[in-house]
């Protein structure tokens, strides 16, 4: 049988874990999707700690005869491994997204600089504003024409329609 003190101590620890996680969610310091695994960990550990009969039975299944609380350690370890693995996948995803963001940013910055270089890009835009062209359609078309006529763009093949082809 599991010693009563162990059951009490483990139950208290599990309840504390659940409370801390809930408080973190409440304070918006932990997003629900990352908290779910922790809550599951807390609940399972609480059940195993409080329901002494179940712990003994499970210990029996695994051939743990002398010391049933070992199952508590095993369960806790398992959950920690799962949580860590989950975090590794999240980290990898963030890593990828971070790279993509850096690349998009760099390409957009380059394009902005090119448009603004030597004030030519601005010159193409400003007259339109000063003319106060109110016809939206006509104005837009002129704007595009101005961009095409841009010195550096002219060297480029006409492939601008393909911006954003690569989506996530």
């Amino acid at each position: 049988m599991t010693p009563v003190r162990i059951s009490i101590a483990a139950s208290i620890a599990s309840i504390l874990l659940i409370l801390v996680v809930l408080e973190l969610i409440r304070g918006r310091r932990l997003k629900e999707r990352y908290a779910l695994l922790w809550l599951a960990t807390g609940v399972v550990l609480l059940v195993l700690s409080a329901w002494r009969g179940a712990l003994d039975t499970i210990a029996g299944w695994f051939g743990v005869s002398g010391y049933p609380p070992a199952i508590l350690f095993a369960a806790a370890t398992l959950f920690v491994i799962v949580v860590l693995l989950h975090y590794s996948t999240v980290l990898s995803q963030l890593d990828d997204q971070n790279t993509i963001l850096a690349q998009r940013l760099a390409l957009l910055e380059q394009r902005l600089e090119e448009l603004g270089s030597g004030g030519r890009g601005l010159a193409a835009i400003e007259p339109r504003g000063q003319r106060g062209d109110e016809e939206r359609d006509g104005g837009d078309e002129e704007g595009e024409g101005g961009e095409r006529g841009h010195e550096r763009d002219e060297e480029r093949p006409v492939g601008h329609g393909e911006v954003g082809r690569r989506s996530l």
Partner: protein
Amino acid sequence: MGGGTLAIVPARNEAGSIAGVVDEIRAFDPSFDVLVVDDASTDETPAIAAARGAAVVRLPFNLGIGGAVQTGFQYALEHGYETAVRLDGDGQHDPAELRKLLGPLARGEADVVTGSRFADDTDGYRPPLGRRLGIVFFAKLVSLLTRQRVTDTTSGFQALNREGIALFAADYPNDYPEVEATVLVFKHRLRLIEVPVRMRERSHGESSIGFFSSVYYMLKVTLSLFLAMVRKYTLPAEEAASP
């Protein structure tokens, strides 16, 4: 053609050599546009490149060679280039050799053409023994995996057509990308061929790989090679535009 050719030069702290690289590419063919992808250099690399008339894309922080090269392919794709060539910013790739790379591309024989130092015995380049072993090891391994003779898997001297550009813009490996990229090309059923080229000694700096890091490098790349063979792939970028 009609789409033009973009020369992609990834560079990190290559202030000493970048001007020469840009000038040599221009000298080889003035119609080439040159793009320097600055991988968060702390020296004057981007300013020098821009002063030489290259377009410069500056990464906000260091992504490593793979991320930088991929940015170049994304630029090529977005700007509609038909052909891209890739040369290193340290000057070890001689633009005069580009003709050999572009030939098979122009004849439609391949989607990706790699300049190989070992494809035949021109013996212009003799790396140290350790490095040579690594190169041979990966050449054999990649040849085995792709069922095609590959002699130089670490060469970053490449020319690509639009299919190749689209693939690498969408998916390009990270740390030591060329080895894995070879497998990637194979998995996507693009045609890769090698042509023998001469490369120069690095004009600046040491080889970036020391002993312990080369052991780590071998293990890591071997692992990613096998993973590359079994990984799930998105479709080539042409079709993957709307997932």
